[in-house]
């Protein structure tokens, strides 16, 4: 049986999730040149936000009613935490040495993980996440799970929304202007503080949608789920060209497909038996990253805004 189409779909799904989280890294980096390492944890809190909504809803609520409310809950929790973090942790350090906010981000990441671990009921081990009922959908050689359908729909919709927002709206143009040159943007009447808050909030909202997709896909959320996924999403952002939102999405998909292909096929290459399998998938993903960065140091799509240095 030819499993290639299925493996491509597996990679596309994994990559879409990376992409949804990666846009948050890339937007914040594009505007304030900060790698927000707490973003993976903001993703995680989104997942717990959705779970909380589900637990509050009366038992027997159908997924069709619950899901929109869960997405709203996830987005609210994640954006609140992201905006709060910007306000309390990052803004006071703006203009300081660049390492200060970076270390703050790492601290925040640990604090959020441990806070959920310690205070969310029964979060010391993984918590089960509600599932969309129904069996898998068979499309020729490809099987798609009901939980994956959400991701397949949500990822492009979110990206289209984000692209529209950045390219077509007044606030979006303000973001572009701030990314190009914050001082000049300020002189032109752009409220850069507000723009930065919006960038954090938008990134968090995308991550929250990703977290709901994660819960639906894997059936569990846990306090550590943002750590590895955050690192992968950051890798995807760099691969696609950090600062470029299309790059983040494409970087995510490329990374996801690369990992899946490495898992499925590397061990079939003669002589590579020991270097294949899922435990080596990350290695191959990073080999790909290095090769891409050697050939195109600016990432696949480059940084669209002018380099200020």
């Amino acid at each position: 049986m030819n499993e290639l189409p299925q493996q491509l779909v597996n990679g596309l799904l994994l990559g879409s999730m990376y992409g949804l989280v990666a846009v948050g890294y890339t937007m914040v980096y594009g505007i304030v040149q900060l790698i927000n390492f707490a973003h993976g944890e903001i993703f995680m809190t989104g997942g717990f936000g959705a779970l909380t909504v589900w637990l509050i809803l009366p038992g027997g609520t159908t997924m069709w009613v619950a899901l929109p409310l869960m997405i709203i809950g996830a987005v609210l929790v994640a954006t609140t935490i992201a905006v709060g973090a910007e306000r309390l942790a990052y803004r006071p350090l703006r203009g300081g040495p660049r390492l200060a906010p970076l270390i703050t981000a790492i601290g925040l990441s640990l604090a959020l993980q441990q806070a959920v671990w310690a205070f969310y009921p029964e979060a010391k081990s993984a918590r089960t996440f509600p599932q969309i009922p129904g069996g898998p959908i068979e499309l020729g050689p490809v099987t798609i799970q009901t939980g994956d359908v959400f991701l397949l729909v949500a990822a492009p919709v979110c990206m289209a929304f984000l692209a529209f927002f950045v390219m077509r709206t007044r606030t979006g143009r303000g973001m572009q202007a701030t990314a190009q040159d914050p001082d000049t943007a300020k002189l032109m009447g752009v409220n850069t503080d507000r723009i930065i808050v919006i960038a954090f909030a938008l990134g968090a909202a995308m991550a929250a949608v990703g977290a709901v997709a994660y819960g639906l896909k894997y059936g569990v959320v846990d306090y550590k789920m943002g750590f590895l996924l955050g690192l992968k999403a950051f890798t995807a952002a760099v691969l696609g060209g950090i600062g470029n939102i299309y790059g983040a999405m494409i970087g995510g998909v490329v990374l996801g497909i690369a990992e899946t292909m490495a898992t499925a096929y590397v061990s079939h290459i003669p002589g590579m038996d020991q270097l294949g399998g899922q435990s080596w998938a990350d290695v191959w993903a990073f080999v790909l990253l290095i090769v891409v960065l050697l050939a195109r140091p600016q990432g696949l799509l480059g940084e669209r805004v002018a380099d200020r240095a």
Partner: protein
Amino acid sequence: MRNRSLLILTTAVTAGALTLTACGSRDDKGGAENGDGGNVTVTIGLDAPLTGELSALGLGIKNSADLAVKTANKKSYVKGVTFKLESLDDQAQPSSGQQNATKFVADKSVLGVVGPLNSGVAESMQKVFDDAKLVQVSPANTNPSLSQGINWSTGEKKRGYKSYFRTATTDAIQGPFAAQYVFKEAKKTKAFIIDDKKTYGAGLAGTFKGEFEKLGGKVVGTQHINPDTKDFSAVATQVKSSGADVVYYGGEYPAGGPLAKQIKAAGAKVTVVGGDAIFSPEYVKLASPAAADGDIATSVGAPIESLPSAKEFLANYKAENYKEAYEAYGGYAYDSTWAIIEAVKKATEGNGGKVPERAKVVEAMQGVSFEGVTGSVAFDEFGDTTNKQLTVYKVEGGAFKPVKSGTFGG
């Protein structure tokens, strides 16, 4: 260009910082002092994952060890000695385990250590304990090389550390036991073997594979997964297209549950079989009860609920109102702790009633023999338990139910 080099620099610094955060904090508490009324306090150390994904098992071990210590004190089992349990968390990390081992060695009141849960963690602790002649009894390590040396499979058995003992049966028996059940009784002939590349998982998968092929079964595929991720879709697709009718997973439930769920969701008609580390209600929860139905786990010993020797333990455990269940290793943890208490008793008696030095406790451990929760407890020349019983459990109606107990012969 300045930005880019800064980006690389910050990335490198961050990667370093993230690695460092894995290290635990250090707290320096002094060793236990002499107790009141002429009683000497002997500390029994305990090392297990008390936080993180494997904490369900770890906390069960801790509570059971605590129960053993309380029982010994209540009965004044060793004259003039009050036992105290000191628990450290290894987070299932070999590096944390080694730090904890060093800490126990430095505390002069520690005469024995129970733990750890993970074979990989045990590897990092063995030498530290052996150098200090401090006895260690693990309730859960099943990797054969820990006691029989790395060449155990070729028959060159050699005990590496005289201070290492365990009350759990090894994978040298557990893997083949599962293979016999799967091939002969479940009548499955095409296996897809997956492991997590850890000491425990890879060892178990290896012993299963050997016996399964010897019996005439066919291995249609192998995969090594990264237990830190949750996405096993690529592996699941491979299992489906391989046509396997059974998946053997050498690894632990935090990855095993989601793996089983995704394999079944992909449409593969397989039974997932694993060792004692997937024998947990958490496995069924993570795999979802519907998907886990019919899955099989082997575990060391017999189900303690069915053992007459465990009645007292079960009643006392309940009476203490522990928040967490005793889980798969509770009985073994109790027996491990009790073995240390017995060894201390024997060594104390041989020392004119005075608390002996550590090396004497190691010597005494070799000769320990008593009726414990899990049956008779004694150790062979490698420090392995002489009780080689195993049980097959099957998921039925959302919970593991014992199917068959027995000893592996051959």
